[in-house]
């Protein structure tokens, strides 16, 4: 299977072109602030290096959230448009699971955190089983102080990855010896791991309705739903 995998869900931009589990070409950049301008040129370049034409792809795999809303939409729009226009398969993989997949030790617990501002995090906890992360605490948007006791209650050594700057001290204090800290590069998403996971997942059945997993409503939408609990909010866009 010829696969294009891409992750633009956060500051890191990672793209891989693979043939089954073999990596043909890959690039990971941590310095770009304009994923919109850089993603397609990087894809174009890697595909050329791998000597593949777009029409030869069988599947496109995208990290579909959580993450930066704009970043997610650049990746997901590229992936769903490519799958739609080439009539190929589309797979979405959790952006948190993609990073957890950097860890290969069987049965190891891995927590991945993205900073969600105001001391909130987007977080998920996984256990490595048969070489891939399996969800233990599902991906969610949660105040860090509510997540911490859940991590502690697992009462096992736990590798913590992601944007940890604001949380390291409190993790150390709460988890004590169970807190395992790894080098920074293991917190970077790798499109190769994403491609590996995405090849083992069933493709989405409806490409058109595929959207990022934001894990959070917009403030306007949340306020409105609170004021109108009985209204169905699914039918607001019409073709005219």
């Amino acid at each position, binding site marked *: 299977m010829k696969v294009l995998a891409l992750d633009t869900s956060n500051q890191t931009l990672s793209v891989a072109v693979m043939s089954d589990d073999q990596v043909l070409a890959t690039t990971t950049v941590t310095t770009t602030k*304009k994923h*919109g*301008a*850089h*993603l*397609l*040129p990087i*894809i*174009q370049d890697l595909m050329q290096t791998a000597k593949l034409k*777009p*029409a030869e792809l069988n599947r496109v795999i995208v990290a579909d959230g959580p993450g930066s*809303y*704009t970043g997610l*939409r*650049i990746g*997901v*729009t*590229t992936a*769903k*448009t*490519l799958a*739609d*226009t*080439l009539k190929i398969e589309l797979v979405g993989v959790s952006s948190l699971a993609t990073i957890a997949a950097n860890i290969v030790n069987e049965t190891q617990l891995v927590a991945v955190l993205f900073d969600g501002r105001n001391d909130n995090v987007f977080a998920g906890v996984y256990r490595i089983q048969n070489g891939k992360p399996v969800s233990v605490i599902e991906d969610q948007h949660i105040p860090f102080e509510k997540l911490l006791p859940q991590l502690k209650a697992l009462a096992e050594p736990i590798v913590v990855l992601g944007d940890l700057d604001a949380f390291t001290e409190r993790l150390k204090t709460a988890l004590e010896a169970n807190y395992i800290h790894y080098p920074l590069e293991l917190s970077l998403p790798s499109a190769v791991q994403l491609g590996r996971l995405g090849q083992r997942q069933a493709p989405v059945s409806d*490409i*058109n*309705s595929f*959207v*990022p997993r*934001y894990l959070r409503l*917009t403030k*306007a*939408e949340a306020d*409105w739903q609170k004021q109108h609990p009985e209204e169905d909010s699914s039918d*607001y*866009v*019409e*073709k*005219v």
Partner: protein
Amino acid sequence: MERNLILAFESSCDETSVAVIENGEKILSNIVATQIKSHQRFGGVVPEVASRHHIEQITDCIDLAMSEASVTYDDLSAVAVTYGPGLVGALLIGVTAAKTVAYAHDLPLIPVNHMAGHIYAARYVKPIEFPALALLVSGGHTELVYLAGPGQFEIIGETRDDAAGEAYDKIGRVLGINYPAGKEVDRLAHLGKDTFNFPRAMDDSESFDFSFSGLKSAFINTVHHADQIGETLKREDLAASFQQAVVDVLADKTVRALDAYSVKQLILAGGVAANQGLRERLDSELEAFENVDFIKAPLKLCGDNAAMIGAAGYVSYQLKQFGDMTLNADPSLEFDWMAS
């Protein structure tokens, strides 16, 4: 002549639109998914909500545009897309999708200025003849643009504060009319009389610039003052007085521009170009300009749509003004001012 087919994208605000255009003049399909109902809940466009709707709609719109036009990707000559001005998150969906289609099928990519698109909606009435003058009035823009030739756009005047459409929405709110308020204010205006004589800002100045914030404030103050003394003003007369002031300023500046620049055509375009009061007024003003042909963008193409982007894109195609895969959204893209 070989058949030129452009797949065009527009997503700068609250409409996701994809169209297939033949030879820059024939609409084979023009799918428009509007989010107005969603944003009406909030009284105006919420950018993050808009971006989320665009990504829900984008490939469905592509599929529908292709199937309705009965064309395949092999038939296409190019992909055109609005890259600004507009909401950055909204623009990014169209730009990203357009680039992806262009890459996947090895097609040239044409970046289109949204305002050029509005002007070229008039192309579906008849070919544009140069030099031409365009009065562009929408929710985000109010400007007079001089077109010396194909692909040439120079601003000679623009609003210094609110866009005309923005002023309509703001006074609409005071009258209890939900966004977008233009159509309802226009309807009310036709039932009332200009009794309040609101200020016509900058109407006597030499420049071709507009200003609507003073008018908007005068309107709001009048209504608030009446509320305070327990007086009820006639909504139809308020609407008529407001619209008369807007139309006076737009028409006077346009007439002055037509006196200063000898042009073959005057083009009226943009969302507010659907306003009946404005259309009627310019119709009568233009009677004094025998040699100027007045073209109004078709009513159904005044709002945002991809057909107009395809028409403008066709001009760029002929001029070989292509973009590459680094194309990014440019939310504050503008035409240049005419050199003085």
